[in-house]
């Protein structure tokens, strides 16, 4: 039971019961990205100018600020899940893999938080 072939060791142990949640969340956030990124790209393409006043004026409005906040959550979550799959495919040493996944959480959750605070500052008019 302990030795044997890789499939022989896995057979009978059943599913890890975690893959489906990861897979589904990747799809749910993909739909969110689709809607919100199209909103962002179309809005940016249609802006008259790209100076500070135009951009910050646009981003601090209620609807764009809401969309940007949702976009940050959806995109950073999706990116975090996607990069995890890449890491799991190419990093085979368990300890290294665990360390990288911990690092990914810090980077992606931290990045999303920074973006959300930036939008909040714009939307609530606190910019210097």
């Amino acid at each position: 039971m302990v030795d044997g072939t890789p499939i022989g060791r896995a057979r009978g142990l059943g599913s890890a019961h975690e893959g489906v949640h990861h897979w589904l969340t990747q799809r749910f956030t993909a739909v969110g990205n689709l809607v919100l990124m199209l909103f962002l790209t179309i809005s940016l393409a249609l802006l008259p100018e790209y100076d500070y006043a135009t951009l910050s004026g646009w981003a601090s409005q209620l609807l764009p600020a809401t969309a940007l906040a949702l976009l940050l959550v959806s995109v950073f979550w999706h990116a975090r899940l996607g990069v995890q799959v890449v890491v799991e495919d190419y990093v085979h040493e368990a300890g290294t893999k665990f360390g990288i996944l911990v690092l990914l959480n810090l980077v992606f959750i931290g990045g999303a938080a920074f973006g959300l605070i930036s939008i909040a500052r714009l939307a609530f008019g606190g910019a210097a």
Partner: protein
Amino acid sequence: MPRGASSLSKPQKFTERTQLRMANRPLSPHLQIYKWGPHMALSITHRVTGSAMAFVGLPILLWWLGAMAAGAGAYDTFAFVMGSPIGIIVLIGLSWTFFTHMLSGLRHFVLDIGAGYELSVNKTWSMVVFALGIILTVLFWAVIFLK
């Protein structure tokens, strides 16, 4: 009786040498065996574009938002760098990356429901995704530059 229980109670059939030989037997053929096609190119492109957006696109997105939140001075620095020729090239690259990843993702939704696996259909849509990705990128920048 569940299948797992019956197989566990069976006596070990393999000797140690047999187990060793079984463990070293060839597994499924790897990438270099197959002839490259558009579907394989799109598959790795999806991964590369996704990673590029995660590690290049998201930092630029955060710089943009942070600069706007910090004020006009910080935003002007951002606009100067990203509006330079190199900055524009990076942004055009990222927009192509986004549109291609988005279209490839839509193709994945179709594959997820079990459709589009016929060889000719699969090949056609893979090439359509590549073509549409370039077309959307050109349209996006045409709207911006021709305004």
